[in-house]
């Protein structure tokens, strides 16, 4: 037993298990209350109060929802491909959970699960996997709405994934590493420009060539997470609930969970790449403050996501694809070239 405790691999695994437990637990809680927040914010935006019956201020509403979903009757449409039908919801939550293993939520080693040197690639790979859940879910349901919703959604996601991937390239040009911790480290300190140190943090977004990528990434995140104004796959007016039309009970809940988890993941990545990660005043004196800063930025972005959803109308499908392919993609490619030329010039001039 003692020998086992000494084993490095075992220690790593043990710590990872502890952290995965904490992350999963916290994430489930956050997701429940994110849904609550969404409904509450939506209510206030629409001059209502939102949920307010279950518990004080309706705070117990998420728990009631989960309980309801657990005991809901479930049915699988005749003619559905049973195996794929069951696999799809698992794939919906899986990528989000895996991506969380590489996100630095505070100074290492306490708030970092692991720091692999291809962290960003892992995120991109996992976000690509998200398409499978939706396509397979839509295809296996044996339902026309589901199939069309799934197809639309996968076409949309892969289209926006291009611009999303390309908008991270300038960040890499600056940091020179794919490790997310490395990228956060490259944003430490204060911004140096015009030969002086400015009273601004050295976050990605404060470098002019990263402003456009940040906004492209933000817009693509809406599309990647299938949120309004890009929630075409589930356009109620035409496709009922899109790819999850035929899903009910816990399987539906998993899709829902996956969507919100993906939202959290993509916002965390955005914080990491462009908003300085866990950097903020006072972190060097008291490390746990890093987590506070990270969560503050994360929740600000999440609030922004919700805000946008209840403010903007949905795009038409051709507008959506056109915007992705004809505006975001060329803009991000051109930005890569400009950023590269500028960085080369600055390094050698």
């Amino acid at each position, binding site marked *: 037993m003692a020998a086992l405790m000494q084993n*490095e*691999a075992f220690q*790593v695994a043990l710590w*990872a298990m502890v*952290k*995965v437990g904490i992350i*999963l637990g916290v994430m489930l809680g956050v997701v429940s209350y994110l849904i609550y927040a969404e409904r509450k914010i939506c209510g206030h935006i629409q001059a209502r109060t939102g949920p307010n019956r279950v518990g004080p201020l309706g705070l117990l509403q998420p728990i009631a929802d989960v309980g309801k979903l*657990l*005991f*809901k*009757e*479930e*049915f699988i*449409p*005749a003619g559905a491909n049973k195996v794929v039908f*069951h696999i799809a919801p*698992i*794939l919906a939550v*899986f*990528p989000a*959970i*895996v991506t969380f*293993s*590489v996100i630095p939520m505070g100074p290492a080693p306490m708030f970092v699960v*692991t720091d692999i040197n291809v962290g960003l*690639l892992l995120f991109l790979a996992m976000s690509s996997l998200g398409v499978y859940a939706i396509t397979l879910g839509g295809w296996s*349901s*044996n*339902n*026309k*709405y589901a199939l069309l919703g799934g*197809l639309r959604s996968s*076409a949309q996601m892969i*289209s926006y*994934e*291009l611009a999303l*991937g390309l908008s991270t*390239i*300038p960040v*890499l*040009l600056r940091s*020179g590493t794919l490790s997310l911790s490395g990228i956060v480290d490259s944003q430490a300190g204060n911004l140096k420009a015009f030969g002086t140190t400015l009273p601004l943090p050295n976050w990605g977004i404060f470098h002019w060539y990263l402003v456009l990528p940040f906004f492209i990434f933000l817009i693509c995140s809406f599309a990647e997470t299938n949120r309004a104004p890009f929630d075409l796959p589930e356009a109620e007016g035409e496709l*009922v609930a899109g790819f999850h*039309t035929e899903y009910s*009970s*816990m*399987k539906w809940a998993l899709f829902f969970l996956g969507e919100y988890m993906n939202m959290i993941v993509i916002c965390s990545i955005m914080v990491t790449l462009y908003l300085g990660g866990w950097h903020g005043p006072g972190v060097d004196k008291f490390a746990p403050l890093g987590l506070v800063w990270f969560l503050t930025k994360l929740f600000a972005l999440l609030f922004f996501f919700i805000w946008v959803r209840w403010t903007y109308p949905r795009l038409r499908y*051709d507008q959506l*694809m*056109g915007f992705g*392919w*004809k505006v975001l*993609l*060329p803009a991000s*490619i051109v930005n890569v*070239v400009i950023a590269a*030329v500028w960085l*080369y010039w600055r*390094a*050698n001039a």
Partner: protein
Amino acid sequence: MLAYLPVLLFVLVGLGFGAVTIGLSTIIVPRRENAVKNSAYECGVEPVGNARGRFSVKFYLVAVLFILFDIEAVFLYPWAVSFHQLGLYGLIEMVLFILILLAGYFYLLKKRALEWE
């Protein structure tokens, strides 16, 4: 390689979480099936035809174009990471590469491959 061990654990947990949830729900959830309930949902109307019909070839086109530009992005990552080591040669090579791809992109635009309608 030890850094990847937690990732592997997260993969297992991620798969396990979904599987356990679905497994649990199959046990506790009530099931009262009947033919109508199990039929595909088409706004209450009797389902017409097969759901797995043919769909627009546009989706295939988008998939192919995605592969094309995604490969481009894949080439850009290693270049971006070692950008400062590659120097001017790397910069010129990559700018040329991007220009060639942009030429292809403009060709697509011209051929209206990106239009939906």
